[in-house]
């Protein structure tokens, strides 16, 4: 289980391949990648603030919780902070399990918790200025599934 919080870009292909490589026990690997998306054509950048120290421990707790709930062989979380341009990768999670259902559900669980329980705050920078992204009710509601 690995949790990484960093400002620098990460190499999704290299991370995904290394995670999936040579797993003779796990038959299923799921990855999720979040990318800075230009919602209305006016986004210049995304700025991500975080809470150093708490971020790492919150992500570690979330990954550990996933391992208690599903039969997971391994999990990986990488999340960036700082300024990101449109098209850049914000974060990724990866899960490895014997069965695809565990790998899928654990990855969705990690995403749902990470959205609303890890101390990151996004700010969208447009030509009109910069605005904090509001938490969406549906992200909070997503937690009730688990």
């Amino acid at each position, binding site marked *: 289980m690995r949790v990484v919080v960093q400002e620098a870009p990460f190499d999704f292909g290299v991370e995904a391949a290394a995670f999936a490589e040579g797993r003779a026990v796990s038959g299923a690997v799921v990855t999720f990648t979040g990318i800075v998306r230009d919602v209305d054509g006016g986004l210049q950048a995304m700025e991500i603030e975080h809470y150093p120290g708490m971020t790492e421990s919150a992500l570690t707790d979330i990954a550990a919780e996933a391992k208690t709930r599903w039969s997971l062989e391994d999990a990986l979380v990488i999340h960036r902070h700082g300024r990101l341009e449109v098209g850049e990768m914000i*974060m990724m999670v990866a899960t490895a399990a014997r069965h695809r259902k565990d790998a899928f559900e654990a990855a969705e669980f990690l995403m749902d918790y990470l959205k*609303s329980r890890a101390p990151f*705050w996004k700010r969208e920078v447009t030509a009109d200025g910069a605005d904090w992204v509001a938490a969406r009710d549906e992200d909070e509601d997503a937690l009730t599934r688990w």
Partner: protein
Amino acid sequence: MDVLYFAWVRERIGIPREAVETQAGTVMDLVEELRGKEERYAAAFADISALRVAVDQQLTDFDASLSGAREVAFFPPMTGG
């Protein structure tokens, strides 16, 4: 006790962190003390339903005890992922 502010709470109060001398028993007691300091604190803490709090880097509630706490952080709902 170190008190930290993030995102628009940080912007509204104007500083990312400060050392606070307090005997507050709970997070809510600390919020009341901060509200009384200055208008920018009163504004930031006007609606605590829009805020989240962590004590010693663990998410908790506003009625949580501050006994033994070294670090309290206030911030809006998180938007990671």
